[in-house]
């Protein structure tokens, strides 16, 4: 690289946020550079070897719908695929897969290598160069290079003041033996970004060859395995099973006896850990009446003996961890490859960000992933994609685009983050989505791919596949609406409906709980030629029709409030009749729209009315000023 090198977008970090950001910016046509410490660890799964689950699986499908790489990568690297909540309806089903770490990493690297406009290089970013207006102009690397750029996406995970706790032992996190990126921390500090501190943990890793699998429950994958990506026709690699075991009263006794040595209880850690991922010591303390806790034994790869014991994350000292593990059925002789630990790190209060994920105080700087207070590969990937896309749009002079809460979980997550901030590592749940029946894993492409094509972040292969599916779906829907039978005819065919003389179309009939596509085909055999994914989509649409109609009315009302943008520089002090508390909350969150303002807890309907009045008045004044 020469001294005059320049890129449109530079992405710092090669994790799940960084890879999606780099790929998205490049797909958008921006000359993109991905800078990371070690090129060979790009796509590394640093915690548990799994992708997806409820809500997280939905995020992966949305990333895929916008032509991101995570869905295709897990389809290539997955070794056990399961659709969660299969017994429930499609809106709350979530795909999940165990990955072979190595295969997954390789798949990510292969997909990036195929991406045009993308350069990948090793390098430690030490600092950012800002111009007098605070705008990012270049990154400065540890080996003294200055690389000019139009925008930077920072996806550096837990690097900000990371601290690992394993019992009484504390080690500064990551980059052991390397000089920490002090300049970057200082620059972020200098521009006055609000920082918070979080904690997360991981369990010990075990040698699977030393686990006694014989007596343990086994959890197999689905047959046939369902892929994540809309572009994957079928999963061909063989599937492995996970094991299930449990802690016991004896394990709990060991934990209780050593609680004073656990950093969370000795006072060594004070930051907030996630409620949904408590350490085993937390579980034992808070749910003292439970005599056992479930542990999933997840293999990390076909030819990798490492096993991830999901459910017993801990920061107890190493010797206590050994005693604990030796008491767990099936793990009596298990060898611990490395102990579990807790990690504390700083994050940037995401209320510092615009919905595009650009830092409000530093034009051209985007943040994505754990640095924004989230946890999970899928949450990181989703933010990475949106940040990369918007970095490219900024450079090309286009306005930012972010999906809203009715477009997808991506929109829910980003709105939650930039409007409400977070108190614990933010993870996606389906209960966070107001429009859960609409935001399904099965229709992410229908919700987002068309928009992605317009934005230019969807490649030609996917665009063609989507166009074909959309056409088949529209034709199929038209056919189902044209086919109709009278109540009497239906009755003769064994389907009881109200004898009201009103003909029922195929679509209408799918709204009856007992009618599925197989039943429709028995009425109209010619429907046998519907492509399976199209038939399934129509079945789901018909099934939820009544509820979706109501949800769509809600969405129209929601979008009316979203359409009312609040100026970025709105001075809340000049808005009359707001209490000091509400004023502070609004100034902190700087909600992008009136709707977002209303979602901030404690902001009353009266305050929203005042805000609406103020904005309308200022708009009128501006018009008058311009006319004058």
């Amino acid at each position, binding site marked *: 690289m020469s001294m005059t090198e320049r890129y449109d977008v530079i992405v710092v970090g090669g994790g799940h946020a960084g890879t999606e950001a780099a790929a998205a910016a490049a797909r958008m046509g921006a000359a993109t550079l991905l800078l990371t410490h070690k090129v060979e660890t790009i796509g590394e799964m640093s915690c548990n070897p799994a992708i997806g689950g409820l809500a997280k699986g939905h995020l992966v499908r949305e990333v895929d719908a916008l032509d991101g790489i995570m869905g295709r990568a897990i389809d290539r690297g997955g070794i056990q695929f399961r659709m969660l909540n299969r017994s429930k309806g499609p809106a709350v089903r979530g795909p999940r897969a165990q990955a072979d770490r190595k295969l997954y990493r390789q798949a990510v690297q292969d997909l990036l290598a195929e991406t045009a406009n993308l350069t990948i290089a090793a390098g430690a970013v030490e600092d950012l160069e800002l111009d007098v207006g605070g705008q990012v102009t270049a990154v400065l690397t540890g080996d003294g290079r200055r690389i000019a750029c139009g925008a930077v996406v920072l996806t550096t995970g837990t690097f900000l003041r990371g601290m690992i706790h394993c019992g009484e032992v504390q080690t500064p996190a990551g980059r052991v033996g390397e000089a920490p990126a002090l300049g970057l921390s200082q620059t972020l500090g200098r521009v006055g970004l609000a920082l918070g501190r979080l904690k997360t943990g991981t369990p010990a890793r075990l040698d699977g060859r030393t686990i006694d699998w014989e007596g343990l429950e086994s959890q197999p994958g689905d047959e046939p395995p369902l892929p994540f990506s809309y572009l994957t026709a079928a999963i061909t690699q063989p599937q492995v099973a996970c094991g299930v075991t449990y802690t016991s009263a004896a394990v709990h006794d060991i934990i209780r006896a050593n609680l004073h040595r656990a950093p969370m209880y000795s006072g060594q850690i004070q930051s907030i850990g996630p409620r949904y991922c408590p350490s085993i010591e937390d579980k034992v303390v808070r749910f003292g009446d439970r005599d056992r*806790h479930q542990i999933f034994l997840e293999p990390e790869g076909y030819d990798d003996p490492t096993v991830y014991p999901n459910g017993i994350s801990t920061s107890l000292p190493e010797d206590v961890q050994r005693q604990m593990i030796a008491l767990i059925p099936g793990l009596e002789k298990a060898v611990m490859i490395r102990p579990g630990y807790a990690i504390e790190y700083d994050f940037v209060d995401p209320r510092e960000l615009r919905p595009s994920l650009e830092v409000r105080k530093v034009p051209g700087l985007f943040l994505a992933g754990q640095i924004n207070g989230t946890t999970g590969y899928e949450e990181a990937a989703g933010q990475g994609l949106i940040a990369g896309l918007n970095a490219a749009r900024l450079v090309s002079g286009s306005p930012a685009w972010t999906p809203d809460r009715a477009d997808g979980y991506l929109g829910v997550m980003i709105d939650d983050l930039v409007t409400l901030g977070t108190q614990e590592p933010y993870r996606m749940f389906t*209960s966070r989505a107001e429009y859960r029946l609409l935001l399904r894993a099965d229709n992410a492409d229908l919700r987002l791919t068309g928009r992605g094509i317009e934005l230019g972040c969807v490649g030609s292969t996917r665009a063609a596949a989507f166009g074909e599916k959309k056409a088949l779906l529209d034709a199929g829907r038209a056919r189902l609406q044209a086919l109709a039978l009278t109540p009497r005819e239906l009755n003769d065919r064994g389907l009881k409906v109200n004898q009201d003389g009103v003909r029922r179309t195929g679509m209408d009939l799918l709204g009856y709980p007992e009618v599925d596509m197989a039943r429709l085909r028995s009425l109209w055999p010619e429907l046998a030629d519907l492509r399976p994914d199209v038939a399934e989509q129509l079945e789901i649409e018909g099934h939820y029709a009544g509820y979706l109609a109501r949800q769509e009315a809600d969405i129209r009302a929601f979008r009316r409030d979203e359409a009312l943008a609040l100026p970025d520089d709105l001075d809340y002090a000049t808005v009359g009749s707001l209490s000091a508390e509400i004023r502070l909350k609004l100034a902190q969150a700087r909600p992008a729209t009136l709707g977002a303002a209303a979602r901030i807890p404690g902001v009353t309907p009266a305050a929203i009315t005042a805000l609406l009045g103020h904005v309308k008045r200022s708009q009128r004044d501006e018009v008058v000023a311009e006319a004058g």
Partner: protein
Amino acid sequence: MTPDTIFAPATAPGRAGVAIVRISGPQADAALSALTAGAPLPAPRRAGRVKVCDGDGEPVDDGLVLRFPGPASFTGEDVVELHLHGSRAVLDAVMALLAAQEGLRVAEPGEFTRRAFENGKMDLTQAEALADLIDAETAAQRRQALRQMDGALARLIEDWRGRLVKALGHFEAFIDFPDEDLPPEAEGAIWGAVEALVAEMTAHLDDGRRGERLRDGFHIAIIGPPNAGKSSLLNALARREAAIVSDIAGTTRDVVDVHLDLGGYAVVLADTAGLRDAAEAIESEGIRRARARAEQADLRLAVFDGVTWPQLDAHTLSLVDDATLVVVNKADLATVPDDPVVAGRAGLALSVRSGQGMERLLARLGEEVGARLAGGSGAPALTRERHRRALTECVDALRRARAAALPELAGEDLRLAARALGRITGRVEVDELLDVIFRDFCIGK
């Protein structure tokens, strides 16, 4: 910038012994100092004597002052109350002096209450109750408003809301955490809780709109054949001391409304056109309205002509039901038993002209109204149509949830139920649900 400091008279305009001017906002103390030529401020919540002067030091009035530093005040802000002499001139002068101060302005109607609401000093039901208390005309209205202001209704709704949030949280846990070792019995408990909520809310909705009727007035329609003495009865009731006429509204010729305070309850008494087979169009319209009014009324007072006893008007008889009190008038002109039984119901004989039986009628009316408004359970009443609508919506959604074919559809209706209930006092936040989930279940695969 901080909020404006607002001020307004807190007492009704006009000549009076005392008039109170209230000031609220960050400059309340400064405003007081300016009015009192910098005299030392009295201690909080202690009455102090002050001499109010104008800018030239000219005395305006001699009064009392009370200071309530925020947040321990009505609005949550610094509040100053000036107790002045209730003269038009004094009040005008003080208002003008305050208005001349920088950063002070006259409060808009309801603005003090609104600030109290915004500063978290009261919830929506309490704010409504305050408005009702100020408007209360009868003892029962006052009691109900005070009770609601005290938060009785809010507590009831909060209790329901807490239980609903818990059920919803548990329900969501089963959706969001399928791989977790959740206690299976918790799933059954969700529906037990929903069942109990539906039962309690329904019972509350079945209170005969007690709270609203108490607040808005209990409607009694006087019905009967022409010339049975309906209008005379209305006039007689209106003139009785036990029934204080407060206002005569009713602009329509056919239905005349009289507002009464009957034993502490607000009652709207309506006289309607006589019921018969009408000969011409206008009268027939009047009769149609009379019937409609009779149907809407909370209680019907059926007046029969005693002269024809025991023959009674068939049109009126057809309207007698459980919510009808029967009287047979003109008892002085005919031989009507003291306790006539009409259409199977115990009635009263009376003579509006002689006054015979009027005391008994008043007593019976008081009993009837009281029985329908007093509410046996003692639970706080729903005082507004808004509460009733939201609660009805909540119950409907809970019922749908119970019948839903798929868990996510049940979940959808449980969420709608929570949202409806939240409209009475405040929203249900997602974080609240997550709190319930992670408090009650050990999640953490």
